[in-house]
């Protein structure tokens, strides 16, 4: 328990100390939100789909969570290269607890980042239908964050250095984001895209956020929760396994 706590605390401290990272990683979601939200707004409206900013904001919140979460997981590579990973790996504590502590820390950070984007979006004109659902919204954010931090951890446990970083960005994170329905309604998407989106866990995260924030559904909340929970568990298991096999 103490192991998990101290590793969680470390992630939080590192996050709060890197102000430039907090602000830097807000830039991209905000650009998407404002440029696309305002820019494509009129087109979206003409197509009879209503307010695009309302539709887009949950997707962009999902985006900031998946980016932060995967990077938190991938930080293991830095810890490996800068030596700190060794310090944790020779300690007489189970690697499962180390992995859980790290993952919870990364997920907390990603959730926090999602909340910041959420509140900034409300200033840009986004208004959720029911503020009372905020606790449930945070639960969804945390679940999405856990899922992708675990995925990042699993990948990073298999990599020795940052050479594979671009590969992960372009062939994993970007497709997961663009094909999740974060930017466009899946209901009207061509069959192929809608099918791919079914296999993208972020689709369910974004859908759950949309249901809770603006009451628009593509799947339904029960399905979203079930898929997110199962996939999170799966990634945690795979991540723990790979993490326990790390050699330096």
């Amino acid at each position, binding site marked *: 328990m*103490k*192991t998990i*706590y*101290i590793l969680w605390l*470390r992630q939080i*401290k*590192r996050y709060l*100390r*890197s102000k*430039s*990272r907090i602000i*830097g990683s807000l830039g991209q979601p905000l650009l998407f939100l404002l440029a696309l939200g305002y820019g494509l707004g009129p087109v979206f409206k003409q197509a009879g789909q209503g307010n695009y900013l309302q539709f887009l904001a949950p997707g962009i919140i999902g985006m900031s969570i998946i980016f932060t979460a995967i990077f938190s997981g991938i930080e293991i590579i*830095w810890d490996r*290269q*800068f*030596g*700190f990973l*060794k*310090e*944790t*790996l*020779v*300690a*007489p*504590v*189970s690697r499962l607890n180390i992995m859980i502590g790290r993952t919870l820390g990364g997920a907390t950070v990603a959730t926090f980042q999602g909340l910041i984007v959420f509140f900034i979006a409300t200033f840009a004109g986004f208004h959720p239908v029911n503020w009372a659902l905020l606790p449930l919204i945070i639960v969804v954010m945390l679940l999405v964050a856990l899922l992708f931090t675990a995925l990042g951890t699993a990948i990073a446990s298999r990599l*020795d*250095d*940052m*050479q594979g*970083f671009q590969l992960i960005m372009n062939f994993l994170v970007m497709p997961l984001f663009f094909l999740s329905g974060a930017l466009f309604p899946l209901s009207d998407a061509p069959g192929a895209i809608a099918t791919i989106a079914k296999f993208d866990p972020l689709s369910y995260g974004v859908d759950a956020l949309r249901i809770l924030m603006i009451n628009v559904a593509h799947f339904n909340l029960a399905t979203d929760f079930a898929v997110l929970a199962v996939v999170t568990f799966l990634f945690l298991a795979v991540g723990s396994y790979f993490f326990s096999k790390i*050699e*330096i």
Partner: protein
Amino acid sequence: MNIIQAKNLTKRFNGFTAVDNISFEVAEGEIFAFLGPNGAGKSTTIKMLTTLLAPSSGEMLLNGHNPAKNANEVRRSFGIVFQDPSLDDELTARENMEFHGVLYGVPKRERTEKIATLLKFVDLADRQNDLVKKFSGGMKRRLEIARGLLHHPKILFLDEPTLGLDPQTRNSMWAYLQEMNKNEGITIFFTTHYMEEAERIAGRIAIIDHGKIIAIGTAAELKDRTKADTLEGAFLALTGKAIREEAGNAMDHLRMMRRSWTGKRN
């Protein structure tokens, strides 16, 4: 009783044999030096003994446990100061110590007291709340040594602990370690490139080259065997004068990546 036992230990990386069928024992309470040129296989051996690498073949026992099978029992038995840095730059000196203490289950009161004592011992007490990234190389080294002493292991591995330390720190560090060795019977297993240090501190010395142990014994025995006046002479007689190269890594490239990624200078 032998607290460390290695038998026919071998480690191969993609066809390259880093450690080649070595066998040795270290008795409980002994101070044992492991010497060898760069790339001889010292760190790889330590990594296998400390559960960080699985051997390709061979057997080893640490405090009666097999690192390849009972990793957690083994991890409870030793402490280690690594050759390369293993601190978290984004945490303060104190936080790095706290982190270590919690991971090793040192009770809170004892932890607080010992951290204060040790930080004073390595002369970092007034810098304890500074981020480690602001420290010089020598300060980081001192902090790592203090951290390695925070819990009381049965075996202490020190992989080139004195690299980059001034003579003052080096001397006070060894005095402290020798006292721990005498009073608490802690076994010390260390590597170094300073021959006079090995001669002065170690009870027995093993010399490893190209992955093989080529000599093992007290400093006097090694000098006798090679008819050399100093341990350095004996070392050179045994290992030759060719300069070795160590494998490079992607460290510099990575530092650059990280800098551009986090937007920070460190």
